[in-house]
């Protein structure tokens, strides 16, 4: 009896230890092949054994199944496991007409289990990277530069540069036309780990300045052209109950958040916004203006406006959804948005950046390869060639229309000239055209693998938007540099520096605008602290990257 008890205790302990070691060995590398095997699915079960041998080489074992051109892409049906983010304005992907049609065309099934909602997406993405169990392809997965370089160099993302010329003729054509795309997507080790969305349409790359025409008429003012005139106009907006609901819910000027406000007006003060951050490029030299006197003047002006109650006080705390509601509700006199898909632009006019504070105004604009990391292939994927052909369709004319407009007959039609149009009721949907289109394609919200050009831009570039863009075009910098892909260690250092710089800068500028800090002693402390944190080193990293680009 005693023995039995002792035995039971021992067994329990043994089991516990077993669990321990079980947990311990799980994350190690020997499972690398498994997710790909699982994903290959039922139809290719017989071929998985060959696949393991071929995996280390450049070509997947499944290459023979892939047709060089035309549809279907594969003769024998395969399944690709997709990882991606279902944007806030998008429906569930497996209900979308475009995917249903494309699956039929290509003979490639899509498994959308890992397409996750935006809420909590970043957490889940981080956990996915750490898990060592990966999907086949990343579609609209919001991969950022540091992830691309980090997981590319770890061998999790497959290098694509050899696949592109052979299996992605459309992408290759875009690159040939604008080689700047290549410098945007090539990692410092020379590989391309992810594809960008390409915008040959400039209107899709910047935020327009939207001025409320009907408010202007009601107070009897002209469209402001200079900063001083703007001041006047904003003052005249204050306190007027334009919508007549008896509540003070109108804001002379509104914007999504304080840093964006600072950036928009930095352009008015003559500063560029290069590499996707607070940097300028002049005569081959990279510099920042975060501690400039001109920048201080800009903040002083914003503080003055804020003090007079001309800026929506919620810009420091609001969620984007709240800003969107204010746009849709026409509660702002002046605000900033890329297009007029979130509000009815009949009452609004897109205006030029205000003159008077600098010789030349600049507009923050994204480069042609606007969103990087919109598509990648996992190194474990057995069907890399098929995946490459699969994505390339969207970089061509027909595919770009499927992505932008959805399925012919269901959501769109072609007119006599062969131009694509959305079905009636989509662009003027009461929910906003973005939400409506998000029900059947994945581009609303940005970050999708797509090619946006003058022929397929009906939704984002309404006439009003294109007109608003005309006002901004003279303010675009001659050269637009994208955030460079940096080596792991440099990018780590940059991320540490920038985390500190940005949080401190955001906090201080917010306080300066709200009048909680002054522009004398506190400003000097700010400049001093920014330098102490490492502003110069931060700039020098970009300078080095710029020098490499020049070569």
């Amino acid at each position, binding site marked *: *009896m*005693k023995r039995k*008890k002792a035995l039971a205790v021992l067994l329990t302990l043994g089991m516990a230890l077993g669990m*321990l070691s079980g947990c311990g060995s799980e994350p*190690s590398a020997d499972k690398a092949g498994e997710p790909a095997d699982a994903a290959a699915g039922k139809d290719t079960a017989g071929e998985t054994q060959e696949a393991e041998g071929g995996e280390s080489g450049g070509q997947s074992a499944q290459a023979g199944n892939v047709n060089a051109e035309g549809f279907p892409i594969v003769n024998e049906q395969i399944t690709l496991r997709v990882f991606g983010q279902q944007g806030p304005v998008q429906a569930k992907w497996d209900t979308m007409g475009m995917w249903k049609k494309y699956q039929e065309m290509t003979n490639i099934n899509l498994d959308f289990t890992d397409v996750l909602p935006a809420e909590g997406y970043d957490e889940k993405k*981080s956990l996915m990277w750490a898990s060592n169990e990966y999907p086949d392809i990343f579609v609209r997965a919001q991969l950022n530069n540091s992830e691309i370089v980090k997981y590319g160099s*770890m061998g*999790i993302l497959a290098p694509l540069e050899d696949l592109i010329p052979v299996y992605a003729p459309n992408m290759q054509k875009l690159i040939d036309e604008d080689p700047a795309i290549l410098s945007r997507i090539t990692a410092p080790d020379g590989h391309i780990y992810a594809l960008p969305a390409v915008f040959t349409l400039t209107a899709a790359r910047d935020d327009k300045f939207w001025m409320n025409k009907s408010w202007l008429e009601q107070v009897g003012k002209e469209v402001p052209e200079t900063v001083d005139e703007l001041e006047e106009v904003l003052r005249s907006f204050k306190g007027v109950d334009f919508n007549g609901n008896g509540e003070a819910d109108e804001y002379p000027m509104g914007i999504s958040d304080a840093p964006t406000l600072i950036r928009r007006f930095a352009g008015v003060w003559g500063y560029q916004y290069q590499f996707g951050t607070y940097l300028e490029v002049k005569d081959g030299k990279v510099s920042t203006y975060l501690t400039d006197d001109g920048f201080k003047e800009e903040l002083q002006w914003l503080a003055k406006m804020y003090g007079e109650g001309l800026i929506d006080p919620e810009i420091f705390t609001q969620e984007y959804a709240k800003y969107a509601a204010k746009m849709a509700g026409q509660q702002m006199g002046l605000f900033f948005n890329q297009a007029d898909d979130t509000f009815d632009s009949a009452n609004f006019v897109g205006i030029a950046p205000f003159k008077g504070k600098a010789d030349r105004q600049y507009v923050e604009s994204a480069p042609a390869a606007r969103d990087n990391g919109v598509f990648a292939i996992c190194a474990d994927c057995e069907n890399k060639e098929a995946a490459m052909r699969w994505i390339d369709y969207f970089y061509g004319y027909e595919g770009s229309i499927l992505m932008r407009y959805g399925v012919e007959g269901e959501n769109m039609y072609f007119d006599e000239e062969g131009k694509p149009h959305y079905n009636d009721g989509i662009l003027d949907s009461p929910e906003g055209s973005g939400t409506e289109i998000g029900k059947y394609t994945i581009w609303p919200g940005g970050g999708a693998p797509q090619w946006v050009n003058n022929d397929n831009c009906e939704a984002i570039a309404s006439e009003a938007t294109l007109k608003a863009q005309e006002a901004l075009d003279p303010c675009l910098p001659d050269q637009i540099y994208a955030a460079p892909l940096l080596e792991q260690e440099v990018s780590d250092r940059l991320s540490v520096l920038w985390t500190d710089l940005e*949080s401190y800068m*955001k906090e201080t500028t917010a306080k300066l605008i709200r009048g909680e800090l002054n522009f004398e002693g506190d400003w000097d402390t700010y400049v001093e602290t920014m330098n102490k944190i490492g502003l110069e080193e931060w700039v020098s990293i970009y300078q080095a990257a710029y020098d490499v680009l020049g070569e």
Partner: protein
Amino acid sequence: MKKIKSKWQLLFMFAFPLLWYIIFCYVPMYGLQLAFRDYNPRLGYLRSPLVGLRWFQQFFSSYYWKDAVWNTFSISLYSILIGFPIPILLAIIINELQGKRFKKVLQNITYIPHFISTVVLCGMLYLFLSPQYGIVNTFLGMFGIEPVGFLESSKYFKGVYVASEIWQESGWSSIIYIAALAGIDPALYEAAKIDGAGRVKRIWHVSLPGIIPTIVTLLILKIGQIMSIGFEKAYILQNDLNLKSSEIISTLIYKQGILQGNVGYATALGLMNSCLNLLLIVLANKFCKKFFETSLW
């Protein structure tokens, strides 16, 4: 063996918490090695390259580290200094109350906030403290006080955090003291009464000494958690404006480890935090042993 046999029920019950500890507290310790490695999921835990103290150096050379450590420490310290005595007081008051019905009502009212989830509580705080339409600022406005942005300033963050903590947890924490007070021999009170001790004297000389061991044990445990204050609340109440006093170690870990995927860095932060905790609990225990003659070990 005989001992084991006679106490098998106890051992059986003990086995479950033991298993829980092994699975959820000891097994994960295996992952602590990531604090010294540059984690690469392809290579796994044991084969990721060692980087020594790189992550620790990175933390101590970052601009916010002092703030983060100080915020973590000070928020806890304030909660203990202000929040720790209140449940004791509450328990004594409840213990002294005569009316049974009133006692129950009071107890229930003070317990209820404990059952509100953190997310809901933070939502309530945002509503109550809003400068535009919050009840607190409306109330202050009646006395001609300008609206205060409690959550939009680093000045009030810790106050809001600690005050809401006290409101939420005092009633719940008083339960254990009420139980301890109930365990005091009524004969002691009667004897004190006969000796002419008034109510205050009875509380001071009978009630308090009776629950001192409970108080000390709870205090030590509380100090042991000083560096591990609730992540959710600080994170939900955090915004750019109060970052200076709301960035605590656990929110840093979340941002670095979960959002940015710097697994090694986050593990190093967590490890450092745990070591500080351990140090504090050992010191607190020593202190209490010396001054109150009660301690955990």
